[in-house]
């Protein structure tokens, strides 16, 4: 009996150690140039979310290009400010790289967190997704024009659900209101899934979300997309117009993107090194596969172009939040 117990216990320990040994850390090599020790990637969300999944994917591919271990750390909390605070309290040496999305400048603009775009340097974006305005398949709104017409006659009556306040969905909805000169009621939920549930249950009139959130329901014929926010029509839905075609010049390439940031003061050559690695990652086959499986597009932007995008989002969102208070 005793022996049997010991046997089970040994097996348990063996199994756990063998499969988790992979998570252990490695020794540093003695190279003088960056990177000469392991790099941390900080995720401002809990483990398992889309931002976390992407960072872990990037980390595992980038290890090869960096020639160093890349450790992913989750620092959730405070709408990203816990991670941001952690990042800017480290050395500006490029060994701490923070993941975030286009939501970062938006939360900054809302005043929800006490930071501005000057507190970070954007290194590169990796993937993106477009926004959609979608309704149930049995909705009376066949086209975006129907939606606008009804909203104009009944201001404030339509309920549009989306994920979070002061985030990408919220800004997108405000821009649609602004561009079409209509007024509807944006109701925030904790995540796109929860918002979609309300639409499917007949408890909301429309959803403003990223394309990946509604994709499956669209394929099943349950949900109809009225318009997409990219500047060109998307290959997945060639019949659906863009907002730009419909006359909403302000909703042009309104994308949700995910990317990486470092602390201001990080040396130029280090930032370039990180950019090179991230570029190689986006060009890798594994990453392409990941992007395809998760319904995202590879979207690699760096340098001044990215800084302009970041500042534009910040200023535009700030203006919107003030006007639609």
């Amino acid at each position, binding site marked *: 009996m005793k022996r049997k117990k010991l046997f089970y216990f040994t097996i348990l320990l063996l199994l*756990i*150690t063998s499969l*988790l040994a992979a*998570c*252990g*850390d490695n020794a540093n090599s003695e190279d003088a140039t960056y990177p000469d020790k392991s790099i941390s990637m900080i995720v401002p969300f809990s483990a398992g979310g889309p931002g976390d999944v992407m960072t872990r994917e990037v980390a595992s591919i980038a290890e090869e290009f960096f020639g160093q271990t890349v450790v992913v750390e989750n620092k959730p909390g405070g709408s990203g400010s816990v991670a941001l605070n952690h990042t800017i309290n480290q050395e500006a040496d490029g060994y701490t790289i923070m993941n975030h999305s286009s939501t970062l400048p938006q939360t900054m603009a809302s005043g929800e967190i006490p930071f501005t775009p000057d507190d970070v340097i954007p290194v590169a974006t990796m993937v993106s997704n477009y926004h959609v305005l979608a309704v149930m398949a049995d909705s009376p709104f066949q086209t975006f024009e129907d939606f606008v017409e009804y909203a104009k006659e009944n201001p*404030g009556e339509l309920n549009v659900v989306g994920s979070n306040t002061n985030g990408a969905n919220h800004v997108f909805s405000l821009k649609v209101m602004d561009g079409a000169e209509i007024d509807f009621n944006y109701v925030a939920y904790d995540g796109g899934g929860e918002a979609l549930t309300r639409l499917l249950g007949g408890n909301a009139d429309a959803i403003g979300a990223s394309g990946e959130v509604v994709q499956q329901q669209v394929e099943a014929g349950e949900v109809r997309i009225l318009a997409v926010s990219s500047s060109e029509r998307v290959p997945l839905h060639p019949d659906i117009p863009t907002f730009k075609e419909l006359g909403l010049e302000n909703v042009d390439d309104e994308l949700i993107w995910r990317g990486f940031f470092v602390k201001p003061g990080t040396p130029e050559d280090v930032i370039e090194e990180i950019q090179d690695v991230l570029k190689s990652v986006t060009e890798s086959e594994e990453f392409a596969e990941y992007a395809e499986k998760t319904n995202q597009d590879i979207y690699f932007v760096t340098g001044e172009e990215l800084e302009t995008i970041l500042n534009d989002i910040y200023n535009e969102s700030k203006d919107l939040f003030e006007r639609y*208070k």
Partner: protein
Amino acid sequence: MSYKKSTYVSLILLIAMALVFMFVSSDLAGIQPNQPSSPATFPRIVATLIIIVGVISFITTLRQEDEKVELANFKYVITTIVATVIFLILWQYLGLFYILSFLLLCFLFYIFSNINNKIRKLLISGGTAITVVGLIYVVFSQLLGVNF
């Protein structure tokens, strides 16, 4: 410690907390004025209810007979809390989690122990502490990658 007196103190503190929440809520009431509810609506309802039920509880306590609240080994309770607080302060500013937790365990084992021989007491406390800390290091840091 008197049961009735401690209840009064706790009720007063709770009502004070409700008042603070009520007071802070006034800054929140103006957000999104065209919505039927504001971030202040719920805190105000709850704070008001706390004040009402607090007063009711005050009255029912008045009518109760007083009893003594037993706080067994209160000296140890205080020692443990103080040691933990010192541990947290040092951890926050110095790091050194494993060394500090070894010291915390060692200290608590030592003062709780009833072994008379001081050297033996110290050896047993230290030995147990190092085993526990070692086990924690293996499980959390080595197996699960949780770093302190």
